[in-house]
């Protein structure tokens, strides 16, 4: 009990033993460490003003990832290296290329969002090679700027590569040929982090709150069985908002983040088994190998920092009707594996969510993994999200269509929908309207009518019920235009934006 949190902060070892575990990294940086470069803009991971970069051991190397400090709970950073904007400038005052590029391109106006942009760009800088506009938009999807219109920041994302690269961990992390670095102080950092590893997990308590982070799935299952009343937390991309927005005292939290084996992703005859602790980014990368049609949907799932902090298991277990992973997983016939102590059981994902934010998970039970069956032959797969904004938004409607077309007929159809019911839902009536019918415009138009009537969505600030219904049906019409119609017609406004077609 009562082990201190240990982390590297801007390269120096810090131990913490007196800060409540439900303190956010941002509050700790600003209030306890007086590192005020990291800003609070929203306290919910939507604006990016609080972005820091976290380095973790990834095999022999380091993985550098942006993180929203406002919704990261401090103990989750145990054993990591946290870098804030203050660390980028060299000791002699020389700005980092990311910073200098922002100055050169006039990328700051009021400057309040700027540290967050600098850190998101630094995380991009640490990745290989040149970045396309798409890469930069993806990297910056979680950073809001209200002043510049973004053009100078987009320019800075290119300019930063043209400036002389610094040595050491501030450097790009990869050589021009894409090979990993041999920088001595990156290796030193990795060694320092290795020394902070905790084979037995972390059990931290302060100010009447407790943080239990078991080091294995087995230990996690045991801890949850022993503390069935405790809230389980993974990436905290939602749970932290209960702290920052509702000011709740969550008592004891059991964290999945230290259980390395829970983050494992494996392939076998039963398909792709994604450990519940795998980050959304890793899970999506694995899914992408088998189901590349889903890529756009994954890149529109929140932002890079949220996808690297959040887990697929967390998204599923949280059970939000607008969680964007579930409609696709339902269409892919995914199963969830639940574990209580040493006992496991499997359940179809569509049966896991039993009501608005209620799941079939029993007290003391953990979500162990999500199993996606192998890709069936002849699969026609599409997933589309419609929201008020392309990037970093919550779906008004999300639909995933998984059809098997054989000899001009729809042999089988599975449709997962989000945003239209209290739970992520399967559109069974529409599936029936498709199955066995010819793969034709008429079939899909008729089924679109069924899909429009299948759910009873609500009116809210994102969209009206009528719009959700209409769009859901129209996405099925889009499916035909995108995958069946000949000659192909343009169906996506984004294609025009990207290709220069407008001229």
């Amino acid at each position, binding site marked *: 009990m009562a082990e201190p949190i240990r982390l590297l902060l801007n390269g120096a070892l810090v131990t913490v033993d007196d800060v409540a575990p439900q303190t956010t990294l941002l509050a700790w940086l600003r209030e306890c460490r*007086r*590192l*005020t470069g*990291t*800003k609070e*803009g*929203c306290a*919910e991971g*939507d*604006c990016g003003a609080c972005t820091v970069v976290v380095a973790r051991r990834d095999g022999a190397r380091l993985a550098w990832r942006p993180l929203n400090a406002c919704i990261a709970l401090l103990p989750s950073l145990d054993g990591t290296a946290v870098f804030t*904007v*203050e660390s980028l400038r060299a000791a002699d005052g020389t*700005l980092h290329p990311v910073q*200098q590029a*922002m*100055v*050169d391109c*006039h990328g*700051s*106006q*009021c*400057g*309040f969002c*700027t*540290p967050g942009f*600098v850190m998101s760009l630094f995380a991009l800088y640490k990745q290989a090679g040149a970045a396309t506009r798409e890469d*930069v938009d993806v990297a*910056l*999807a979680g*950073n*809001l700027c*209200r*002043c*510049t*219109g*973004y*053009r*100078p*920041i987009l320019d800075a994302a290119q300019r930063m590569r043209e400036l002389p690269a610094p040595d050491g961990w501030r450097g790009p992390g990869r050589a021009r040929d894409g090979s990993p670095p041999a920088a001595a102080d990156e290796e030193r950092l990795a060694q320092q982090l290795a020394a902070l590893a905790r084979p037995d997990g972390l059990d931290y308590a302060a100010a009447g709150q407790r943080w239990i982070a078991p080091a294995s799935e087995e230990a996690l299952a045991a801890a949850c069985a022993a503390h069935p009343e405790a809230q389980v937390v993974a990436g905290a991309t939602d749970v932290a908002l209960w702290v920052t927005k509702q*000011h709740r005292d969550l008592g004891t939290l059991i964290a999945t983040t230290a259980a390395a084996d829970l983050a494992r992703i494996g392939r076998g005859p039963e398909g792709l088994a994604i450990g519940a602790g795998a980050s959304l980014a890793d899970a999506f990368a694995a899914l992408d190998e088998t189901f590349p049609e889903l890529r756009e949907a994954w890149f529109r799932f929140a932002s890079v920092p949220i996808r690297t902090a959040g887990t697929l298991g967390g998204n599923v277990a949280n059970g939000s009707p607008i969680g964007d992973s579930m409609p696709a997983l339902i269409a892919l016939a995914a199963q969830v594996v639940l574990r209580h102590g040493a006992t496991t059981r499997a359940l179809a994902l569509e049966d896991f969510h039993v009501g608005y934010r209620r799941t079939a998970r029993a007290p003391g039970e953990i979500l162990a993994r999500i199993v996606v069956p192998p890709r069936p032959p002849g699969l026609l797969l599409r997933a589309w999200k419609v929201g*008020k*904004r*392309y990037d970093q938004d*919550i779906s*008004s409607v999300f639909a995933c269509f998984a059809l098997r077309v054989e000899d001009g007929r729809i042999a089988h159809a599975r449709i997962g929908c989000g945003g239209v019911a209290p739970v992520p839902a399967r559109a069974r009536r529409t599936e029936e309207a498709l199955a066995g019918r010819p793969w034709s415009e008429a079939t899909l138009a008729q089924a679109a009518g069924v899909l429009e009537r299948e759910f009873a969505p609500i009116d*809210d*600030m994102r969209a*009206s019920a009528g*719009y959700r219904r*209409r769009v859901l049906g129209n996405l099925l019409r*889009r499916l035909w*235009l995108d995958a069946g119609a000949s000659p192909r017609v*343009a*169906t996506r*406004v984004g*294609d*025009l*934006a990207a290709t220069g077609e*407008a*001229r």
Partner: protein
Amino acid sequence: MNDPRGLPAAPVEHAPALPHESAELHVAGRAAYTDDVAEPLGTLHAALGLSPVAHGRLRGVDLAAVRAAPGVVDVIVAADVPGANDVGPIQRDDPILADGVVHFAGQPVFAVAATGVTSARRAARLAGYAIDPLPAILTIDEALAAASYVLPPVHVVRGDPARALAAAPHRLTGEVRSGGQDHFYLEGQVALAIPADDGGMHVLCSTQHPGEVQQMVARALGLAAHAVVVECRRMGGGFGGKETQMSLFACVAAILARRTARAVKLRLDRDDDMIATGKRHAFLHRYEVGFDDEGRVLGLDLTLASRCGFSADLSGPVNDRAVFHADNAYWLPDVAIHSFRCKTNTVSDTAFRGFGGPQGMFAIEAVLDDVARALGRDPLDVRTVNFYGTHERNVTPFGMTVEDNIAPALVAELARTSRYRERREAVRAWNRSSPVVKRGIALTPVKFGISFTATHYNQAGALLHVYSDGTVSLNHGGTEMGQGLFTKVRQVVARELGLPVERIRVSASDTSKVPNASPTAASSGSDLNGMAAQDAARKLRARIAAFVARKLDCAPQDVAFRDGFVHAGADTLPFAEVARSAYFARVPLSATGFYATPRIHYDRRTLTGRPFFYYAYGAAVSEVAIDTLTGEHRLLEVDILHDVGASLNPAIDRGQVEGGFLQGWGWLAMEELCWNDKGELATHAPSTYKIPTSRDWPARVRIAFWPEPNREQTIHRSKAVGEPPFMLALSAFHALRDAVASAADYAVAPRLDAPATDERILAAVEEVAARAAR
């Protein structure tokens, strides 16, 4: 002066494009904002208790649980305000804390001070409210029906619009709405009040108007103005949202600081900030227009009704400015403009970049687009035939002669460089063969009046010190919110004194240095403060030149200041050396500067006169694509030609053009404020209120400046640039309308309100298709 294309013959000279004065601090995380300043020992943190009801009699608040909560030191309600419980900038109708009646859901009712931020915020949620609900008016329509106004309606009439309408060959009526907009400055409202030893108060506050905070805090505490000092080094964005809205929070912090004799900080979290602070006014625009076969407007009857919220705040001047911009760049011969300032049980709406101008222009651009579509003409042709003339047809509905009209030439040049006509044909050809994705294109102009309509605000002061080592400290009444004001004014002073900018240090806006400063608003910051600082610099330069001339026995006019040196005949002396010897010779090395804008006057009662010193112009061509299955849309390509005169800093001006444009696109196409039927704001965080992200910046953008200095004697012949570019985004809104119209083969004019969300686009597409089929 014009060549055949309408371009001025002589090129314009811009000042250097230096980086923002704080750029290196911004990128390193070293720039300190109000919340970053080290807090005095024992600083308390405040939080507000907000009304859960939109309208009701406040019988009382049960604060027992609040007072008993851990860490709580003090709690105040309206009765605890020692002085005036009011922060109304013009009318006295804005209570700091609700007194007797609550006027909107989210109105501050009480405030708590505690030892930590979280303990204060937790405690603020523990109150029990005893409120007897009253009927709430939530919408413009309800307010108009009930004749519920914060200020009396205003009517501006010229000629005989009724007769002109009756005689016109064509007539149209229409109605269109534009939504509100949250400022979404990244830095929320914040104030830190520190009691002074003599009973006074020192307030650090994120504000565009330190002088008003000073007055309000003094009033609330019952102090004289000189007992309150307000300071602001920089804001993390303002956009009008910190022109009046910060006063309430500064007063709460100051009252709690006075009572507890401790420093008190009030920093709103994002949700409270969005719920409890005013926004851009939503408008209902109704019109009847009469026009000829070419689309020339002959008569117009226009109603502009805005939702002002529960109090007047700046709604008077905001709505005046909407009236003043309902002509945009167009001659309206016989015209009536009716302005209704609706009182609703919602947060009191306030200044936001453009200050009513965007809403006025929104109306006339919608009218002209409808006229063009009714006639089957290119909307650009209809806009062009309606432009103000240069010597005739050049008087605004409020009686100001437009003396500097460059709109026709500027628009013609942009149409040429953007290949508008060719692209419009290409868009139509594309649409014929694309059943789902439709493209649209539009060109709209901007003519924006520069000056505060409150004439007395058009003044500024500056304070300049030269130290004996030759370095300079600059202070002026303006505030820095990211717009680059401090950078520009520093460059102005550097130019006067012939010094590199590094020798001039800009310092925090401070009511004890420059008194009675106007808000930094109305795009006027550099016009006013640049001139005031130049005045101060010239006084110092003249004193130093006279000293050098005496010393070196030459004429003062032969003394030149260049590159850090003072040149006098054959002699060249480092400025630092001159400063040092001037000090020893007891030459005063501190000066104040002052400026008052000339030529402006206007009658607030009749809304007539010359409220503006000059106009800033611009125009944009935007091209968009829409998805007729989902209503999703994207901005594809933008060409902008904007008039900044002789730029004080082209990089900063470009930043204002780009940032203003995208913020305007957010207002018109993305950002939707939703209230439920209880009057509660449902979109109070970035999870639900969506401002543009980097992807929304189009892939193809060309920006150029109109190559002509300001014809008026402004600072270095520059033009104001803060607000005008915001309205360039109207081109993108009209491109959306064009794309929607294509869904029914341009047979009918779309009905499209702003913001044109995906949902509204889809509804408009389906509506034009249904109407065209009838």
